[in-house]
């Protein structure tokens, strides 16, 4: 029996008086990569634990390839590989022993691909788990999941602890999985990772699904954070269409701009702009902008210079 890689119907989980997940209904097709986004405590991990049968739903149901997870857990697990956000492994085993064990438990692996992954992720499998860094332990779990060539990969913040090079190796591996027809359900806080890999994105907030669609359909959520340094007193930009949360700090102005940036560029013409920095908002800012109380406190730490103005020089 085959069905969608994942199908949930009104899936709900309550812990005491707290609704960790409410009426989640979504479907993930075979061969599709879906990003699962949300702030801490939104219910992402709860959802994945329900999909794996590690937790029992308070209401609703979850299916993996048409198999009811609550009733046919082992059959469902034959088609799933999972990477948790925290790598808890047996400290006295080596990396090679752990991979061997997890492969035997799963029942089938692609040994050649395992060796490729070990090289790709630069893992020394002769070391004991207790000597690995967090990132290296995460690599063991990633390799164990990927080498199984499972029909569905459930990844719960799988790149936490990985360096940028390994992040790239992870993206290559997910692309390979998609090309091989595997479905991937990727829970992540890293918006760029989700944007680079996912066909569709689901956004969860306070246990409820607030958005689910392709990236294109979610573009309307995005707003840019723009920071401008002027040579002279800055003009009033609060009337620019799409501008919000305008903060003036001497000759420096910071604002959020939704929609096209062209009206802002026009408003800045002839205003003595020395420097213009912009960046996409973080995931948290997106939530705050569209579902929360404002983003005036956004930190400018990782601004990128994406549009150097003519005659402007960076200091």
């Amino acid at each position, binding site marked *: 029996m085959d069905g969608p890689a994942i199908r949930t119907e009104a899936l709900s989980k309550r812990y005491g008086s707290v609704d960790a997940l409410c009426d989640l209904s979504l479907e993930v097709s075979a061969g599709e990569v879906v990003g699962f986004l949300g702030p801490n405590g939104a219910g992402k991990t709860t959802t994945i*634990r329900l999909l*794996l049968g*590690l*937790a*029992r739903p308070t209401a609703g149901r979850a299916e993996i390839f048409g198999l009811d997870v609550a009733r046919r*857990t*082992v*059959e469902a*697990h*034959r088609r*799933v590989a*999972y990477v*948790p956000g*925290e790598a*808890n*492994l*047996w*400290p*006295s*085993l*080596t990396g*090679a*022993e752990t991979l*061997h*064990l*997890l492969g*035997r*438990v*799963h*029942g089938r692996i692609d040994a050649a691909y395992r060796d490729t992954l070990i090289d790709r992720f630069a893992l*020394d*499998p*002769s*070391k*004991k788990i*207790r*000597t690995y860094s967090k990132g290296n332990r995460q690599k063991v*779990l990633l390799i164990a999941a990927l080498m199984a060539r499972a029909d569905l990969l459930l990844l719960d913040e799988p790149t936490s602890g990985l360096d940028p090079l390994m992040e790239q190796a992870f993206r290559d591996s997910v692309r390979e999985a998609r090309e091989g027809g595997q479905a991937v359900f990727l829970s992540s806080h890293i918006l760029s990772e989700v944007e680079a890999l996912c066909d569709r994105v689901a956004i969860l907030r306070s246990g409820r699904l607030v958005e689910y669609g392709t990236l294109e359909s979610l573009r309307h959520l995005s707003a840019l954070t723009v920071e401008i340094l002027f040579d002279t007193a800055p003009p*009033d*930009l*609060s009337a620019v269409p799409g501008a919000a*949360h*305008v*903060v*003036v*700090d*001497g000759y420096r102005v910071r604002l959020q701009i939704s929609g096209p940036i062209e009206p802002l560029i026009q408003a800045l013409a002839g205003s003595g702009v020395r420097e213009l920095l912009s960046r996409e908002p973080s995931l948290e800012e997106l939530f705050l902008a569209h579902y929360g109380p404002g983003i*005036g406190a956004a930190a400018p730490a990782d601004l990128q210079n994406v549009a150097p103005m003519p005659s402007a020089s960076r200091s």
Partner: protein
Amino acid sequence: MTYSGIAAEPRHLTVVARRPGAVVGRQAARRAVRSGAMWGVVFALFVIVQTHAYTATYPTQAARNQLLSAYGTNLGLNALLGRAGAINTVAGFVAWRFLGILGVFGVLWGLLTSTRLMRGEEDAGRYELLQTGATTRRRAAAQSLAGLGAGLCALFVVTALGVVVTGRGGSVGFAVGQSLYFAVTLVSGAAVFLAVGAFSSQLAATRRQAATLGGVAFAVCFAVRMVADSDASLRWMVWLSPLGWIEQSRPLTDPDPLALLPVLVLISALLAGTLYLAGIRDVGAATLPSRDSSRPRLALLSGPFGLAARLIRPVAAGWLLGVAAYAALLGSVAESSVHDSTGSSAVQQGLGRLGGHGSEVRAYLGLTFLLVALLAALIAAGQITAIREEEGSGRLESLIVRPVSRIRWLVERLALAALVVTAAGIVSGLGVWAGSAGQRGAPGLGPLLAAGLNTVPPALVLLGVGACAFAAWPRHAAAAVYGYLAWSFLIEFTGAIVRTNHWLMDTSVFFHMLPAPATGVNWTGAAMLTGLGLLSGLCGAVLLNRRDLYGD
């Protein structure tokens, strides 16, 4: 538009800790005090109940003298619990019984608490986080030791309260000073092994290794003390063991506080060594050499059962060696232990609950195997703790997110534990046989193997009960299983000497075990106990399949 000044606003910092360097100590103290106070309550209750039971059961001096003639010369009991020289007085009985039993509980508490709060915290990475505060490695270790000291104080205060309350009873009559001195000796073993655990935490690479090192130290100390108490010609050996020093302090009967001086010296040396090693080693590293890499050994790693077998192999080997050595030692003194009391009707009366009808050697061995049953039950309880640790640490998830059912996992895990327990029963029979071979009245290999196997069913019941507790209250599984074991142990040992309500006796996992080889093995009863254990284990597996998984 919103305008803000160019200068950054001044930061207002609030003092939240006057001595931030003491955070490590406070963390350790909070947990140690809670644990120490809890065990103090157990100690105090044990003292109150057992002392009352003694005075009620042996109200006359004649009855107490009879008790002395039954047990005072029993070398097996002397070896196990220390010299029972004056148990015909309340003071003598209290000192002998409680130092022998609670002293060992205190040692286990000290060892497990210090390795948990020192090496265990380091393993979990929490210690490293605290070390980044306003402290140094050595100062943080000192803080941890201070926290452990607070836990020891809690154990002492609550225990002392119980002893003082007991001592004020009309039929007891201990002075407050006597009671306090006795409480000091009661917790001295705990103090020594708190320090041993702290020191081994600096040597070992993991908490398990640290606890094993401390366990070996305890086994050596206990064995030396046992030998010293078994044979008058070897009495000098009592000064080679810290447990012997504590015994020599002779609280309540013939106090010799100077005997505690070496205890203080040893503790000081261990604490100094702990601080020295903490200062010179890296956080998270071991002082003893440890292998960080190795060639893969894949023989057992074919599934959850093989994995569990590999993980418990060192612990199981340690237990089996310990049980075999213990059984051989008690077997070797079987004949001499009953020699002094041969012909005493009090022996048969005292062991009456055991129901033995054979020779005194067989009756003595019946008691020996009762203690083997306790060890087997301890193995079972330890396995329940290990099972819960697999879940609590999150490692279980790595297995059961693959095609492994929870029922299969737990059943296999329990089966492995049952195998270890059964092996312990067999090696105990072999050990007693090897120790007692050639002695007059000693049974042959067959009856002793049967007696060893007879100790297994109570452990299987405990395993089953523990599995149910694990499935129903995972975070309290260890407390439940050790609590039930402690209850059974206290009930059994209380009932063996003083009269106890039959319904209470029924609740002990040991009560339905016949004392082979003093009697034959009741195979039907053993099969029923085994069946009860299996059924409880299956219930646990089914319950586990119906609940969420929980981390620590």
